[in-house]
């Protein structure tokens, strides 16, 4: 074991001297984190609110009811409600470029003349929504209008049934009483724990785990470099077990990965306000992630003949796993096959573990830690088999 440490120490010194580990392990992820956080944060901090125009050509009681409900909705959602006088005015308000500084509205509601009368009868009645160039605000407007129309439809059916069974009263008054009847199915809103990482944390963590694989690869690759340079024969001629060589390389790759992760965690926390969560949970996840990276990168290297080839294969594997695992884009939100497929990558487990930690406690990371360790142990065992065969000068 002493020899393994000697080898690890020598390699660490070499990696520090050659600045690639520094660039791949710290500078690149930190630089990208800085860029990403500057790009994505202004967007996250933005709160959605809409502006709606309403045009009442009807002037009847149902139209007044609508305006009242819309005002209530506006207050509730922090949206602006503006009353307009003509269709042209409504259309102009709506027809603006999205995100321009021009005053505009996301949608306009039009209550056409005669709507109240029609609504109070059993005849078809229509209200209108004019949308602009799309967006969430317009969608909300349509569903709001449809909800109101649905209530009216109900009231008409309820009053008609009431009349059919012999009830006789002013349709407006009866309708209002009908609307006062609560819906038989109520919606109960329940608040769930928040296990989604904030944008700042997501990109810091995603980049850290993405580049971790490259950092570990630099370590693993040194075995092939020794073979290429011929120093491997010299090591193998030394009085020690072959596993000491592999162990030495493993220790070195682990230390490289660990140091870069710790630096990244501290730096992103201090510089970009990333919230990694409980240190113990993070430590468990980081260690497990490094072990998984070690196993996978060693296995990939085992199939390569030259250091260049190993570098190529490893980058391919690391990039594909990274993208699939949702380190750059929250693949989980995509749904479907893609969001299931991501769990074949350690990256996805690492990100999920951090999310679970953010919305829970340290024990919540254990499934993710377990999955990561499983990755590491299975691929590591396979890699040992391959490397032992390949450990010939």
């Amino acid at each position: 074991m002493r020899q393994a440490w000697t080898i690890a120490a020598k390699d660490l010194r070499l990696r520090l001297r050659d600045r690639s580990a520094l660039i791949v392990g710290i500078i690149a992820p930190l630089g990208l984190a800085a860029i990403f956080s500057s790009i994505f944060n202004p967007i996250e901090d933005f709160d959605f609110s809409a502006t709606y125009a309403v045009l009442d050509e009807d002037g009847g009681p149902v139209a007044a009811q609508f305006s009242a409900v819309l005002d209530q909705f506006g207050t509730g959602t922090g949206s602006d409600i503006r009353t307009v006088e003509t269709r042209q005015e409504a259309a102009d308000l709506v027809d603006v470029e999205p995100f321009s500084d021009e005053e505009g509205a996301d949608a306009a509601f039009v209550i056409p003349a005669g709507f109240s009368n029609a609504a109070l009868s059993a005849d078809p009645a229509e209200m209108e929504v004019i949308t602009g160039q799309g967006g969430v605000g317009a969608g909300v407007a349509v569903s709001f209008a449809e909800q109101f129309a649905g209530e009216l439809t109900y009231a008409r059916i309820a009053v008609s049934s009431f009349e059919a069974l012999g009830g006789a009263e002013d349709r407006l008054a009866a309708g209002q009483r009908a609307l006062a009847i609560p819906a038989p199915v109520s919606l109960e809103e329940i608040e769930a724990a928040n296990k989604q990482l904030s944008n700042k944390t997501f990109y810091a963590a995603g980049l850290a785990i993405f580049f971790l694989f490259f950092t570990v690869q630099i370590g693993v690759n040194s075995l092939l470099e020794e073979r290429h340079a011929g120093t491997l024969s010299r090591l193998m001629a030394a009085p020690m077990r072959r596993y000491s060589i592999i162990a030495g390389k493993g220790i070195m790759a682990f230390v490289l990965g660990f140091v870069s992760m710790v630096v990244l965690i501290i730096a992103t926390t201090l510089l970009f306000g990333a919230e990694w969560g409980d240190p113990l949970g993070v430590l468990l996840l980081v260690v497990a992630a490094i072990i998984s990276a070690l196993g996978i990168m060693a296995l990939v290297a085992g199939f390569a003949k030259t250091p260049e080839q190993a570098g190529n294969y490893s980058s391919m594997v690391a990039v594909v796993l990274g993208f699939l695992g949702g380190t750059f884009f929250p693949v989980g939100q995509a749904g479907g096959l893609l969001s299931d497929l991501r769990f074949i990558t350690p990256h996805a487990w690492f990100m999920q573990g951090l999310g679970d930690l953010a919305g829970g406690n340290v024990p919540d990371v254990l499934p993710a830690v377990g999955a990561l360790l499983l990755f590491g142990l299975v691929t590591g065992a396979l890699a040992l088999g391959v490397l032992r065969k390949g450990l010939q000068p």
Partner: protein
Amino acid sequence: MKAFTIAGTNLRRWLRDRSNVFWAFIFPILLILVLGSAFGGSSDPRLGIHNEGDGPLAADLVVLLEEQPGMQVIQFESREDLVATVERGELEAGLLIPVDYDATLRQGAMTSVELVARSAEEAQAISSNVQSALTQQSVVLRAAFFVESEEVGSFAEGLETAETASMNVADVTVVVSSAGEPVGFFQLGRFDASAQQQMLLFVFLTSLTASAALIQTRRLGVARRMMSTPTPVRTILVGEGMGRFAVALLQGLFIMVGTLVFFNVNWGDPVGAAAILIVFSLVGSGAAMLMGSLFENDQQAAGLGVLLGMGLAALGGCMVPLIIFEFFAPTLFQVAHITPHAWGLEAFDVLVIENGTLVDTLPFLAILLGFAGVFYLLAIWRLRRVLTR
């Protein structure tokens, strides 16, 4: 002519390494496919549903929810799964329909469904949709409740009459129209914006890997040997750059044609699009030559290549559309324009959104050519220094 010889050799060596083919052609198209199908265009909120009820009313409710506009519905098999998915932010909200949904309602009693969300704000967009589906479903039931409460009939009588009334009474409907032509990126197809962003990102990123090739040429001593032949430094550099320029061009063309054929992506005027691609590939290869003449170690250059390739692309609007910068962060919008990517994207906007032609993109192309020129000149100056000092 010699530049072509050097370019040809560079290309030949590039092709010998099969992983290059993966990076240049297979990976980008995969990514565009994945990102396009996952995120392209659709920003509709997602509602997960777990239906424990087995009656027709419960099933109807699910159908009504699925018919709601502006919302995606995903069914879940277990409550835990649904809640966990909501907690992780992979759904905006989850809806739980209870096991006795049908039975309770048929008895004339009230019931409730649960809407799980991480915050009231997030539930908002979806709850109005859910509410309107519930309203639609409960019309007849609610009318029966009304009949009962008005004491003109029993609940059962009410149900029967309301059923009949619902056939005879017309629905109050909502007519949706849109004012003016939809413009801007809302009009873009599912893959359009992402295809252009990815194309520029990859063309630049792949070009930057050429820097490693130049560093290798230097480290192998071949660059010095070339210097000892009657070949000026600029020819060496242009040749090395041209090899990768060809790769970038081929890659860009591949992405353009591939996305055009398979996803029907709109690239605008073909001549204009080709011109942007050519000029942008020049910029990429110029940046690579500059990097290749600045660094001594190809591993370092590869790491920095990823940093620059991804970082500049992110900054230049290849990950978040420039229009969003413009609206949310004007400073960032200005910063974006230190990258060639932003100019390339704006040139594409001219073609795709404004239906412009080559002529309209000329100002942007001129700026991009400026980038390429500066990169190549600096690279030649620097390479002369490192090779002869």
